[in-house]
C-alpha cells in the first residue's frame, strides 16, 4: 500500500515537474526550490510536488467543465428562443462538490502535519550535529561557529552529510534566512532566538539570501553556503584558526552598524558577542525616549543612514 502510494506520488510529481520545466524553459539547476540538495529540502520538495499533482487535477477538471459549459451554452442565433430552466440547486451535486474538496484537503493535511513535525528534528540521526549561530544585521550575515570559536561574514562553510543546526537571531530589523536548495526559510528576529535544521547531501556551493525586506540594501544580502566534505571542513577550520585575524569587540560592534561589507573570516569572536547583540537590540526605540528625557544624542549618527550609501570600510 505504502509503496503504491509513494509510486503514484513520484509519478505525478515527475509529470508535474516536467510540465513546469517545459513551460519555463529552464534547467532544473536554475530552479533551486525544485532542485533539493539535502533531506530538508527533499521533504519540502516531495510535499510541494504532491500538492502540485493534486492541484493539477483540480485545475484540469474545472477548466474542462468551464470550457464545456461556456461553449455549449453560449448564446447563439440558433438558440435564440431558448429559455433556461429554473433550477434552484441540487442537494446531491452540492454534497458531491463539498466532499471532493474535503477529501483533497485531508490528503494534503496529513503529510503537511507530518512534515511540519519532522522538520523540528535533526534531518539525519546518524551523525553528531553541528551548531552555527546566524545573526543578520543591516545588511550582512554574521556566522559564528561556537564549537570551533571562529566566525565568518557573508558566507558560511558547513560539513556535508552532517545535520547543521542554525541558531537564528537578528540585530535590528528582521530578515529571513533562506537557502532554497537546502531547505525552506526562517526569520531572524531581534531578541528572539530560533533554530532551523539544514543538511547538504554532498559538497557544493548553494546560494542563500534574505527573503524578508529589511531596508535599503536588503537586496544585496546574499551569501554562499559552501558544503565541504567533513575532512575538508576540518582542514578549513584549522586553517582559519591559524591564519585568519582575531575579531576584537570593537570590530564586532562596528559590524552591527548599518552598512555593507565583503566576505570576511575571523579566527575568533568576542566572548560577550551575545550580550553585545542584546544590548544593541535594547537600543531600539530608546534614543527617542532619551531625547525626550534630556537630549542624549549618542545614537543620532545612524539615524541618517537612509539617505546615503552606508558602506563600511574594513
Amino acid at each position, binding site marked *: 500500500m505504502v509503496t503504491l502510494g509513494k509510486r503514484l506520488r513520484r509519478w505525478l510529481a515527475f509529470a508535474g515537474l516536467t510540465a513546469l520545466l517545459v513551460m519555463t524553459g529552464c534547467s532544473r539547476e*536554475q530552479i533551486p526550490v525544485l532542485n533539493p540538495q539535502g533531506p530538508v529540502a527533499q521533504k519540502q520538495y516531495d510535499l510541494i510536488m504532491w500538492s502540485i499533482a493534486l492541484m493539477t487535477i483540480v485545475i484540469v477538471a474545472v477548466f474542462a467543465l*468551464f470550457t464545456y*459549459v461556456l461553449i455549449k451554452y453560449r448564446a447563439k442565433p440558433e438558440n435564440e428562443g431558448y429559455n*433556461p430552466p*429554473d433550477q434552484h440547486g441540487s442537494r446531491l451535486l452540492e454534497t458531491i462538490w463539498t466532499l471532493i474538496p474535503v477529501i483533497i484537503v485531508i490528503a494534503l493535511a496529513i503529510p503537511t*502535519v507530518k512534515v511540519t513535525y519532522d522538520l523540528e528534528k535533526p534531518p539525519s540521526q546518524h551523525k553528531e550535529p553541528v551548531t552555527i549561530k546566524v545573526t543578520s544585521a543591516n545588511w550582512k550575515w554574521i556566522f559564528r561557529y561556537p564549537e570551533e570559536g571562529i566566525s565568518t561574514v557573508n558566507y558560511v562553510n558547513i560539513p556535508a552529510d552532517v545535520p547543521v543546526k542554525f541558531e537564528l537571531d537578528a540585530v535590528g530589523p528582521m530578515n529571513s534566512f533562506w537557502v532554497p536548495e537546502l*531547505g525552506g526559510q526562517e526569520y531572524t528576529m531581534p531578541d528572539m532566538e530560533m533554530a532551523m535544521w539544514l543538511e547538504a547531501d554532498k559538497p557544493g556551493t548553494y546560494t542563500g539570501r534574505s527573503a524578508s525586506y529589511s531596508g535599503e540594501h536588503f537586496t544585496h544580502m546574499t551569501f554562499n553556503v559552501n558544503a565541504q566534505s567533513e575532512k575538508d571542513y576540518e582542514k578549513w577550520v584549522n586553517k582559519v584558526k591559524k591564519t585568519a585575524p582575531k575579531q576584537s569587540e570593537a570590530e564586532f560592534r562596528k559590524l552591527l552598524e548599518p552598512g555593507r561589507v565583503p566576505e570576511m573570516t575571523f579566527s575568533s569572536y568576542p566572548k560577550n558577542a551575545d550580550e553585545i547583540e542584546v544590548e544593541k537590540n*535594547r537600543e531600539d526605540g530608546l534614543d527617542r*525616549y532619551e531625547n525626550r528625557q534630556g537630549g542624549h544624542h549618542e545614537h543620532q549618527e545612524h539615524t541618517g543612514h537612509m539617505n546615503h550609501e552606508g558602506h563600511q570600510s574594513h
Partner: protein
Amino acid sequence: MNLFEFKMPEHFIIWNDPLIKGAWVSIILATLGIVFVLTYFKKWKWLWDEWLTTVDHKKIGIMYIIASLLMLFRGGADALLMRTQLAFPDMKFLNAQHYNEIFTTHGTLMILFMAMPFIIGMMNIAIPLQLGTRDVAFPYLNAMSFWLFFFGAMLFNISFVIGGSPDAGWTSYTPLAGSEYDPGPGQNYYLLALQIAGIGTLMTGVNFLVTIVKMRAPGMTLMRMPMFAWSTLITSVIIIFAFPVLTVALALMTFDRLFGTHFFTISGDGSPMMWANLFWVWGHPEVYIVILPAFGIFSEIISTFARKRLFGYNAMVYSMVAISALSFIVWLHHFFTMGNTPAINSFFSVSTMAIAIPTGVKLFNWLFTLYKGRIELKAPMLWAMGFIPTFLIGGVTGVMLALAPADYQYHNSYFLVSHFHYVLIGGTVFGMLAGMYYWWPKMFGHMLDERMGKWAFWLFTIGFNVCFFPQYPLGLMGMTRRMYTYPEGLGWDGLNLLSTIGAFMMGVGFLIIAYSIYWSARYGERDTTGDPWNGRTLEWATTSPAPVYNFAHIPKVEGQDAFWLMKQKRKKGKKEKTPELKRIHMPKDSGRPFVFSFFWFVAGFGFVFEWHLIGFAGLLGVLACMLLRSFEYDDHYYIEVDEIKRTEAAAGRL
C-alpha cells in the same frame, strides 16, 4: 513632547529626483487646470451643492469609484515603474530607496485606497437600490465615511512630494518601521492616513449592516436578498470585527513613534512580533473584505447573463458565512516562518486549507448556474468569465502556500507575489470592473462602449497572465519580493522581461477603459429603459439613473430575483395596482462631513511632522464638528407629491 516645537525635517519639499520633479509639475498643472475649469465655467457652486455636500448614496458611490480609478492609475503607475526597473538585470532606473518607497506605496494604495473604495463604491451604488429602499440607514455618516477615506487618501498621496513616502513595506513590520530604523516622516504618513481612512471604513461597516438588517423592502426576507446584498452584509460584519484591530495597531505604533511609548520596540520590553500579529489579525479578514463583495457581484452578473437563477442560493450564503468565520483563524499563515511550534503551524495550515472547501462550493455553483443557461458575453460577463480561471489559479496556489513546510520555500518569494495578485486582481479588480460595467448605466444613464470594453478586457486579461504567470517560476527560482535589482546569470532575465511586457499590456487595457469612460459619456448608447441587461434584481426596476428618492413607490417583494418575478407577472398580463403617491422623507445635504474630514486631514498632517500644535488644533476642529452635529435638528426634508410626479413624468414613468 513640546507643543510649540516646529522642527523642519531634513527634506520637506522633495525635489531630488527627475520623476518626482515631473510629478510636481503635473500636480501643479492639474490643480491649476481644475481651478481654471471650475472658475471659467462657474462650477464652484455646482461642485459644492451637488457633490461635496451630498448625502445621496448614489453620488457618494460615484465619488468613491472615481477616486478608486484615480488611485488605480497611481498604483498602476507605481507598478509600471517597478516593472521597468526589473525588466533587465542590473537596471539603473530606480535606486534602492526610491524602489522601496514605490513598492510600499503601491501595496498600501492598491489595498486601502483602490480596492476598498471601489468595493464600498459598488455597495453604495447598488445596495439601497437592490434592497428597494431610499438610502442607507445613516446617509450623513455615509458622507463622513467617504470624506474620511478621501482625505486619508490625499494625506497618503502628498507624502511623496512633501516629506517623503513611507518605505517600510505595506506590512510595515517593526522594528524596521519603528523610529530607530525609519526616522523620517514617511512612516507617519502611513500610520495617520490609514488611521483616518480606516475610521471611515469602520463607519461604512456599521452603516451597511444596519441598512441591510433594517431597511429591506417589505417582503424581502434575508433569504430573498440578492447575493451582492448578502456578500455586503457578511463583509460589513467582518469590517466591524477586523477594522478596530487595525485602528488600535496603528494608534499604538503612532504612540511609539510620536510619544516614545514601547509597544513594538525591544527597549522597554515591547514586542515587535506583536505588530505582525495585530496587522494580520486585521489583514487576513481584510483579504476577505475585498473578495466577498466581488463574489457577490459575480453571482449577480453570472445569473443575469446566463438568464438563470443562481444555482444553490442557500449554499452560496452558507459558504460565505463559513469563509467569514474561517477568515479570522488563519492570520498566522502570513508568518509560518517566524518559528512557531509545529502544533501552531499545523493548526493554521489546516484552517487555511479549509477555506478552499466553501470557495470550491461557490465555484461549482457558478459553473452550474452557467450550465443549461444562455450565456451572453457582454462586457460585465466577460470579466466574470475571466475571473473563474484566473481566480482558480490564484486559489490553488493559495492552497499550496497553506502547507506550512512548503511555505518555508515559497514565503516572500515571487511565487507568493504572483499568488496574491492572481486572487486580488483576478478576484477583486475583475469583480469591481465587472460591477462597474454592469452598474454604469444605473449610475449615469448610458452604457460603457461594448467594443472598447472587449478590447480592454482581452488586453488586460492577457497582459495580466503574461505579467504574473512567469512570477510563479521566478519565485521557485529564488527571486524574493521587494528586491530592487538582480544580477545576470540566474536565469531570471527572460521571465522578468516577459512580466514587464505583460504589465504594460495591462496599462494599455486600463487606458482603454479610461478613454471609453470619456467616449461613452459623450457618444455612448443611452439607457432609457432602466433595465438594459434584462436584470433580475430591484435596482433595474427604477430609472437609469435612479431619481434621488430611488423608488416612487417602495416595491413589494415576493421571492428571490424580485424584479424578474415582477417582469414574469407582467408578461402574463397581470396588472399591478399602483398605490397613491405619498410625499417622501429625505435627509438634507450637509457640508459638515467634508469640513469634519478636512480637520482630520489637518490633524494628520500636523502629527506627521510632529507639529503637535497643528495636530491638536485639527482634532479640536473635529470635536467642534461633532458637537455642532449633535445640536442639529433641521436635518431632513420632504419631497412633495407634485415634484415626484414631475420627476416620474420626465422619465416617462407616469
